């Protein structure tokens, strides 16, 4: 589905032979509309348009290319689209989809994020993926608040034939510490902490995550973000990153039609890589992040 904003932008160059300040200005307004509808954060849209304008008017625009040995002119519409796409991909990179593993002892992934973003389901997806890569994965039920959260993770564990560590009447901080001891004892080499959803402004619950971080030093702190999120993405991502120094971002529910502009906002404000994309409710639906796919979706 191409957004009307992007279509309009391309049409600004009909019958034009060059990118000029006259035809670029209206095209940028169309792109602005498209990016705001895609939920890219307001100030980031401004910065993006400025970069595109500079590139489009600058020396970097080559509207002549060598094709099969002869010079060919690229239509200004295509040159403009190319600049937008490249600029967006540049903002979303550099690509780093690695998982950090430690030299000695079990490695840890800590999942965190707002309520309902997809942490528990994504925990299952990562567990499946990494088990298939040969890891011995222990799932840790660190959400003691949400009704039947531990049941939910246990059902996922049964589905994937993986062990779930849980402990009644214990704080999430202690559950995670005890899980590490259990993992060492039973020779697991990767733990995934499924934590409760929380608001970034909830000082007590953010403090809980900080304590888990202090005591277990997770090698991968992943912020799980619902791709339908709007302008609030920046407040949430900034706060989680400031308090916990995240290692990466996982964007979920991209099997819908959310444009996912939040991805750009989150990347910009944290400077941390997007690692994976959630593409459905079942545990096989996790993809490694590639900027090209998301860039064209955000641009519309």
């Amino acid at each position, binding site marked *: 589905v191409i957004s009307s904003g992007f279509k309009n932008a391309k049409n600004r160059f009909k019958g034009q032979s060059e990118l000029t300040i006259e035809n670029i200005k209206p095209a940028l307004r169309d792109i*602005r*509309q498209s990016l*705001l*509808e*895609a*939920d890219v*954060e*307001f100030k980031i849209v401004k910065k993006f348009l400025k970069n595109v304008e500079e590139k489009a008017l600058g020396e970097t625009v080559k509207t002549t290319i060598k094709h099969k040995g002869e010079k060919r002119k690229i239509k200004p519409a295509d040159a403009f689209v190319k600049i937008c796409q490249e600029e967006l991909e540049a903002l979303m990179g550099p690509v780093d989809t690695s998982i950090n593993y430690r030299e000695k002892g079990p490695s840890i992934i800590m999942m965190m994020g*707002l*309520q*309902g*973003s*997809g942490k*528990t389901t994504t925990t299952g997806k990562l567990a499946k993926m990494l088990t298939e890569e040969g890891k011995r994965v222990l799932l840790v039920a660190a959400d003691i*608040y*949400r*009704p*039947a*959260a531990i*049941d*939910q*993770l*246990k*059902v*996922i564990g049964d*589905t994937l034939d993986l062990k779930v560590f849980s402990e009644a009447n214990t704080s999430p901080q202690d559950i995670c510490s005890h899980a590490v001891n259990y993992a060492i004892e039973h020779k697991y080499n990767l733990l995934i902490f499924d934590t409760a959803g929380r*608001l*970034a*402004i909830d000082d007590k619950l953010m403090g809980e995550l900080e304590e888990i971080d202090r005591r277990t030093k997770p090698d991968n702190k992943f912020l799980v973000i*619902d791709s*339908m*999120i*709007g*302008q*609030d993405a920046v*407040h*949430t991502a900034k706060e989680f990153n400031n308090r916990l120094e995240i290692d990466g971002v996982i964007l979920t*529910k991209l*099997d*819908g*039609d*959310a*444009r996912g*502009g*939040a991805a750009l906002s989150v990347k910009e404000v944290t400077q941390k890589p997007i690692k994976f994309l959630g593409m459905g*409710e079942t545990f096989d639906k996790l993809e490694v992040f590639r900027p090209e796919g998301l860039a064209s979706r955000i641009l519309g």
Partner: protein
Amino acid sequence: FNEVKELNDDFLDDLEELLLTSDIGPKTADVLFEKIKEGMDKKSIKDSASVISFLKQETFDILNIKFEEKINKKPYIMLFIGVNGSGKTTTIGKLASQYIKEGKKVLLIAGDTFRAAAVEQLEVWAKRSGAGFHSGKDKQDPSSVIYDGIKKGLDENYDIIIGDTSGRLHTDKKLMEELKKIKRSAVKAHKDAPHDVFLVLDSTNGQNAIHQTKYFNEAMDITGIVLTKMDGTAKGGVIIGISNTYNIPVRYVGIGEGINDLKKMDVEEFVDALYS
């Protein structure tokens, strides 16, 4: 925005930033800005304070949609629908608790037969609120669970019957068809069901909430919206465009994860918070 300032470009730029960062969206922001410009031309708007009060009134008028309070119908049957993770199950638990405190006999139907521990989750809320509970077999067709649940609610003289459904993306044609089937089953169980269909929208959503409303409304006429997670930093401004386009009122606002964290929508309060 509360001190009276001159109506200059800086003020209008700041205002545009306020509107857009509240998730009002570029289309609705343009509509509102057009009206402001008209007011400025007609000189009915001459300073920043009058812009803000104009915006508040305009927004209030859009959101202040009439609805019929059906709580004293018997039976009163309602369904909750919405995308994954929006807060349907939790909202049902909160609402059930309110009705029970008002002396009503409430039945909750576990219509999510798909997701891990969805039935268990609703059962906890039934226990916490004091509501009755009906669930089907594992992976049973949700339509038949809803049908059986409504029948049970009618047989056992419940005042209020609330059906929970599984989260689904509005772009999933198969799951949207399932919703239509759920509605047909509800009608089979009781000719006037559902008396209310609530679309649960996560207030942190951006413009995608508009698409959600469009497709969910086509599948099952939505009579009300619940805006959840308003205890966070999101402003929920996308609801303005939604109410303006689909004429559906926001009935409740979720303000936390506890059983008492649900309040009736107060349009004036919402508008004041939006433009603060």
